[in-house]
């Protein structure tokens, strides 16, 4: 009588399996909490602009560079009514960047005196200080935010301090080689608001799925699938259970040799696309279009970027 050889049970480790056995003490370091939706936002929320844009970056050094930027076009003014008011404006922005592996300094100043500054210093191998500030000459319109990040072996924590008594902390931990979970808490003294939120991210080589819930009423889910080396598709669902706002969007991201094309379509009736084409070494052409059929707002922009 032939003995039936039962197939080996699933928990017998073959040599191939040994490599894949999960070492829970040696998990990879997770993505920072604020970048948890990074892949989805890169495809679905590119920087659309309206009008003409010209950026020139001059590198003086490997680490130090100056940038000049001219933007001409209509800018939106926030208005109470549902009408959109646009005023044409032209601006010149001067910037200086210093990028070192340990220290990064970025400063941009506009013609009306507004300064936007970013600072990142690696104090030790695991502790990083970041600061972000928008300063204006008008009183009480400036914002500043300090972040202290600590990176552990398989976790990250962040402490945030901002002006107006803003205080926030977040923590994210790798639970398995593919899954990481995190939470955050914030408190704004000036507006007397506080909130707590949780996030989860599951990623493999081919896909990333994230979910985020916050006590401010926001629920955000996103899914990004990397179809090939050059193509990735993303979709996003945002729901606010306090204000009953729902938005779903689907987008694509083609990274080709000479260009990068990103497009999206939204449930609010917004269709947008952004093309960055490399014409030559150091010369990039930008074409942006964002069409809002519901509000009848049509934004088209073109630009040129010179320099790295």
């Amino acid at each position, binding site marked *: 009588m032939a003995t039936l050889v039962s197939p080996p049970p699933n928990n017998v480790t073959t040599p191939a399996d040994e490599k894949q056995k999960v070492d829970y003490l040696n998990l990879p370091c997770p993505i920072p909490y604020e970048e948890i939706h990074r892949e989805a936002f890169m495809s679905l929320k590119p920087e659309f602009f309206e009008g003409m844009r010209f950026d020139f970056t*001059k590198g*003086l*050094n*490997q*680490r*130090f560079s*100056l940038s000049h930027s001219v933007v001409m076009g209509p800018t939106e003014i926030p208005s109470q009514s549902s009408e959109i008011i646009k005023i044409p404006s032209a601006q010149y922005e*001067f*910037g*200086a*960047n*210093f990028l*070192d592996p340990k220290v990064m*300094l*970025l*400063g941009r*100043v506009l013609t009306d*005196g507004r*300064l936007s*500054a970013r600072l990142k210093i690696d104090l030790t191998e695991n502790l990083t200080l970041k600061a972000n*500030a928008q*300063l204006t*000459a008008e009183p009480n319109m*400036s914002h*500043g935010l300090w972040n202290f990040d600590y990176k552990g072996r398989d976790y990250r924590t962040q402490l945030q301090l901002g002006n107006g008594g803003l205080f926030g902390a977040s923590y994210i931990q790798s639970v398995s080689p593919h899954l990481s979970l995190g939470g955050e808490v914030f408190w704004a003294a000036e507006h007397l608001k506080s909130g707590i939120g949780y996030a989860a991210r599951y990623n493999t080589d081919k896909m990333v799925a994230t979910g985020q819930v916050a006590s401010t009423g926001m629920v955000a889910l996103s899914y990004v699938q990397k179809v090939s080396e050059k193509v990735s598709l993303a979709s996003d669902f945002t729901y606010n259970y306090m204000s009953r706002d729902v938005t779903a969007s689907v987008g694509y991201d083609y990274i080709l040799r000479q260009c990068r094309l990103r497009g999206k379509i939204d449930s609010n009736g917004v269709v947008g696309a952004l093309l960055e084409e490399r014409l030559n070494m150091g010369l990039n052409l930008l074409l942006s279009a964002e069409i809002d059929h519901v509000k009848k707002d049509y934004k088209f922009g073109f630009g040129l970027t010179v320099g790295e």
Partner: protein
Amino acid sequence: MASKFSLKLGKVKARKKSAVTAEDDERSTIAAATKCVTEWTAWGLQKGKVITHYGFIPLIIIIGMKSEPRPSLAQLLSPV
């Protein structure tokens, strides 16, 4: 009798008042100290904001001009 009574009441009230004013004094010194500290930190933040506003970009330029390899002033000011 009534005058003695009123005198006693007067003394008790005076003692209570003096105890209250001692507490008041302590509270007011702490309040004055915290007010002083908040005023000075507000002054410091205001001056810090003005210094950052005017000095951040010159600081980046100075740090950049001192980094290796040193760029020259002509390179900094020329538009090419």
